[in-house]
């Protein structure tokens, strides 16, 4: 038999391989990384995820009285680095991949946090949940320093030291 005719029995045996998507599921394996999900009750708003995120899909901003951790799916590359670095394990990698939408707003997910203002200069510098957490961890930390922003805290510390000398 001419060798190339072998294609015919191969094709007959294989038949149709196209999956009847979206009726036949699942399309993805157990390891698949899709969009992420931030658990608002676990998130402290520390911003670790925004610092590692390669495409800057996660960002932190302060709007009025609230700090917002914003996840923009449109930029996400589904690498899952955020979930790796999250100290609270608040980020879960889902298998969600059907993410297209007619409204761009649908691609934004916000987690809102209450912010703490600096007792001296009045700048908003940290989420209250993160501050509480730090407070619990550091038992002997002077209370008056805790509510100062990093800059004012530095000034306070330095002026104290000068005084001591």
């Amino acid at each position, binding site marked *: 038999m001419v060798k*190339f005719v072998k294609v015919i029995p191969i094709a007959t045996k294989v038949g149709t*391989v196209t999956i009847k998507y979206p009726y036949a599921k699942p399309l993805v394996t157990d390891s698949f990384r899709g969009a992420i999900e931030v658990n608002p009750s676990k998130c402290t708003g520390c911003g670790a995820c925004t610092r590692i995120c390669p495409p800057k899909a996660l960002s932190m901003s302060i709007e009025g009285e609230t700090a917002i951790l914003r996840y923009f799916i449109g930029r996400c590359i589904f690498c899952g680095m955020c979930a790796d670095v999250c100290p609270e394990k608040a980020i879960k990698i889902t298998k969600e991949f059907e993410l297209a939408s007619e409204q761009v707003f649908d691609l934004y997910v916000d987690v809102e946090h209450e912010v703490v203002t600096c007792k001296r200069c009045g700048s908003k510098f940290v989420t209250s949940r993160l501050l509480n957490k730090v407070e619990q961890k550091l038992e002997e930390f002077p209370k008056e320093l805790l509510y100062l922003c990093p800059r004012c805290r530095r000034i306070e510390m330095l002026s104290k030291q000068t005084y001591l000398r």
Partner: protein
Amino acid sequence: MESLSTSSEFENLYSYLKRFSDRLVEEEDNLRIVVESEKLREVAEVLSKTEGVFLRTIAASDERSVNGFYKMYYVFGIDKIHRNIVIEVPVDSSDPVVPSITDIVKAADWYEKEAHDLMGIKFSGRTLYKFVLPDDWPDNVYPLRKDYTVQDLVKLYRPEIVTKAKEVEAEAAIIIPIGPYHPALHEPEYFELYVRGEKVVDARYVGFMVHRGIEKLAESMKYDQVPFLAERICGICGFVHSCSYCQAVEKALKIPIPERAEYIRSIVLEIERIHSHLLWLGVAFHLLGYDTGFMHIWRIREQVMILAELLTGSRKTYGLNIIGGVRRDIDRDKAKKCLQVLDNIEKEFKNFVDAAINVPQIKSRLRRTGLLPKSEATSLSLVGPTVRGSGIPRDIRKDYPYAAYKYIDFKPVVRSECDNMARTEVRIYEIFQSIELVKNFLDRIPEGDIAVDSWEPEPYKFGIGAVEAPRGEVIHIVITGRYSPYRWRARAPTYQNLPAIPIMLRDIELADAPITIASIDPCFSCTDRALIIDISSNNVKSVPLNILSLKSSKLFR
């Protein structure tokens, strides 16, 4: 690893170089020598005349803030003894001129043009023109210099399209490449073929339509973010880039990575090779008008894609590499599943390719077309299946062993016919070889950690990371900085292989041009349209490449 006799072959070269300059550093696998620019040509001459020495890459770096000058790094590799010779040439910061070595080392051509465009280094003794940057790029703005941040560059560059948009009072402007730059299958590219009748006389390539400036971008990103950027250099073989980058940083900072991580990297690299070669084979069949072959090869390939997703979490852009190791382990279940899938692929592929490659049209279109003589392949320092199809056993896995390839023995697949068929056969047999390698790796993989706990960056260290990608050697140079890479130079295999296309196209039938261009497996992949310039009648016409390709197949019907 090497016997004494092979290294003594290069003893003369080494003692010559050592006499040449007293400023030299011997590292684990590099010999780094500082050479003044007046003496560069002399050194290049000696290196180019020594058999077995290939140019691997060239990088220009702006080190004015560190030591007051620019620096050129010329990386020559001696495959046989697995070592590099890095020639470092300091370049005056007020008058950055270096003698050109393109007439001595042919492969240096593109690198010099690129260094001129992006770093503003001038090369005496040759003509230079805009190569990478667009025509409307402002003069005397050299983006890779440290004077500019990415934000500066975005502000500085006002493409002509913006002014035009204002003229016609448009709100926004979008460039849609239709016509000669048609990204039908993958990426844009552009060839001019000069013909006499149906015979190709010469060819010219115009590229860099989508230069993304990622080397610059990486300088503002953190070390652990760059692998994900590197992975996006190529949509087909991205893992090799993140691997090379990580290896370069690990070499520079001497980070010892766990053996298990090395094995996992190698396994995934081979799986990527299998999918990439299958993809190419499918596209090649399609170009030759054998769409049945295209469909079946891609059907077989789909299993590899699903397997990759199972092992890494994604079909492509695996996101597996970080500096110091990998992010996901391959457990027993996955290993078992992997073996099953590979067995199935091996059986199916063997069965099918045996039939497909014997189709008379395929055979006759591939045999004796796109000839690439061994001598030309050597002088251009070509890489990958392109060079192995011309009888030269260059394979980075063997020549500069990395990851788990140093623990395993195998022979590079070589064919000596120098034609399109030879390059096709190299890829076909490499698929079988890769399956064999993955099985071997899975068999030998040791227990242990998959990444180091932590590591510290140290500025101004130099590291080279190279990986044998499906298309050939990928080589990255990293000069470390405090928080981000200070300079990162990525060189993909197509960069090295493209200059071979005009040689392969010379004197062939016009209809064989598409498969010949595709035979180096160019990373930008299949062109859709080519411009044909008929020298005798001065007619210019545009023809979609696939139609051009079909012309010849019809002769058989």
